[in-house]
């Protein structure tokens, strides 16, 4: 009886051995929307910060290939999802572009259109990769071991809020830290745009940030000498 048990056990162990099979993926390549490790999955695009004079501006989204590059050009397009409140060809255009042969990355141009209705309300555009004969939507998540050890994130969708009115920009805290600019107001921000002669103040250099307080106080003193106090939309005197 003992020998039977031992024999069965040994046979069972031996039969459990099995050559492992290597599975490989077969199917279409995929395209992923992706952002950097510390970048958000959405943005606010306001035409009040846009230098464009044509009523349209372009916001670029990063796309990358999941799969092997090929030696032919392949079409890529994004599509707006149903949750979007912006209307295609009225508020935005999502063109068909080409992923060049042998390349893995692409900056996709989302064309945004300036209309009267975004002066009062903010519209939302939720985009995703449009599946076509070349590509499906990619797997999501972090990618490891990229160039420069960045950990980019592949996203399923990306949200763009479109408006044409002033809101406190996310970099206002930097202005408060370096330039002692105080609380945000639209009139204050517009005054700064005039002083620096640019609309998108996020493009100010580090030197500009350090020198901001002195520059704004001097400009405001010059303004007040000519026009009197500058009063903002909340009826407060603008000060820096």
């Amino acid at each position, binding site marked *: 009886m003992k020998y039977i048990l031992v024999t069965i056990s040994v046979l069972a162990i031996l039969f459990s051995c099995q050559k492992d099979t290597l599975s490989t993926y077969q199917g279409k390549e995929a395209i992923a929307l992706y952002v950097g490790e510390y970048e958000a999955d959405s943005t606010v695009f306001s035409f009040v910060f846009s230098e464009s004079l044509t009523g349209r501006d372009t916001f670029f989204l990063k796309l990358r290939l999941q799969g092997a590059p090929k030696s032919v050009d392949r079409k890529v397009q994004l599509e707006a999802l149903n949750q979007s409140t912006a209307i295609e060809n009225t508020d935005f255009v999502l063109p068909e572009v080409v992923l060049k042969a042998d390349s893995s990355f692409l900056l996709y141009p989302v064309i945004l259109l300036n209309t009267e209705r975004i002066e009062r309300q903010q519209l939302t555009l939720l985009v995703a990769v449009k599946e076509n004969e070349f590509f499906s939507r990619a797997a999501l998540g972090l990618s490891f071991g990229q160039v420069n050890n960045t950990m980019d994130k592949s996203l399923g969708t990306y949200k763009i809020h479109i408006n044409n009115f002033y809101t406190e920009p996310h970099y206002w805290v930097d202005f408060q830290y370096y330039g002692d600019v105080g609380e945000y107001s639209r009139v204050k921000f517009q005054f700064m745009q005039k002083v620096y002669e640019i609309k998108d103040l996020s493009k100010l250099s*580090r030197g500009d940030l350090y020198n901001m307080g*002195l520059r704004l106080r*001097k400009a405001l003193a010059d303004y007040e000498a000519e026009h009197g106090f500058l009063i903002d939309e909340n009826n407060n005197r603008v000060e820096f």
Partner: protein
Amino acid sequence: MIRNIIKYNLLLITILMIVGCNKSFDQQFSRDDVSYFSITYPMDTTINIIRLDTLKIGPTFTGLKSSVNYSYEWTVFENSSSSTPRVISRDSNLQIKVDQLPGKYYLTFSVKDESTGVKDVKLYNLNVNGNFYEGWFIANNKAGKGQLSFIRDDGDLMFNTLETINEKSYPEKALQSIVSVESSSVQYANVFYFTNKGVSVFDANTLYEKVSQNAFFTQLSGVQGKSNYVVCHFNYDQLMVVNKELRANIGPIMSSDFLTTFSERIEGDYEMFPFAFQNVGGMSTHYYDNKNKRFVTIGFGQRELGYPSTTTTGSTPFKLSNIGTTFMFADYNSSTRQVVITSDTNKKYIYTINFSGDNISRIDAYPIQGIASLNNIMAFAASSESLIGFIADGNKIYRVEAGTGAAKEIYAFPEGTEIADLQMYKRPNKSIGAGTL
């Protein structure tokens, strides 16, 4: 049983040992002494050369045999770990036009015995300088038009460098030039050229224009009098005094693109004397306010003045908030000490300002004695070797002891000559240059 196991094991070990034995290959080789040879010139050294000049080196050797075939190789690589050597010659005698950009490089020379592969290698420092590597920049005017001239260490004299090199006219009246070279960032060596209309900046190695006139300021109607420019606070800040106004900007450590618009005038009630008092390498810089006769400070990254009020030690105690004299000229004596010529109602003084950390800790002040007039002081320079200064008064140069105020005439130009500037040659700092009108 146990006996049998031992017996069979011993037999097995013996068989394994026999099988493991292997006939060794024949070690039949002969020994020959490898001839000893080496490079005897040049030995460890630093080679300085001006860019685009021809570098000629005729090395010497010891132990080379005429019967042996040797190969030679000269390589150059940058003074950084990521650099790869570039072969510039395979001749024994080097003769090559140096086309590297100004900077610090390594040069290697190797000689190899082709029959044995034995090699001797020597490593040298190679400093490639621009045309203007050492000498005197002189902002001057000819027929009412400014020019920046250069007297090079080797005696070469270039008169109108800016126009020749930039193929552009600089018609403004020249006031001053300031060369800024930070030892930790020599690649940022710049010449600041001040004219009656503004300030422009040129690369100190090539004199190519980097910043055109007035790109530095949001508003500047013109420049009057002496100006001052320093990179300070561990390259964190740049500070400039123009028209008695102090302005600031981020330094090269913050951004390689630092020659950008300076700040507006740092706020406050002052007329700044154009000289930065500092413990070189410290995190705070002092300026002297000739309006309120006091010292003020500006810390690293700051865009506002501080007002120190401590009392110093020294020949006479001074309250930094009330020094009570007018500063006329100043120069560096050491990294922690500056020497100043000041003027009171009827007397001129020589002050020594000593730093301890970021603070002025000691001031010594003595009336200057031994100079008859002292009404026409045009220039001043301090030694950086001992505590003395040199004053140009009319056509004469006087040596002044900063520790006593005693002055003595050391040179006189012909009567009627007027000395316009005095500069101490700080490296080595044993000579003094005087420019006359």
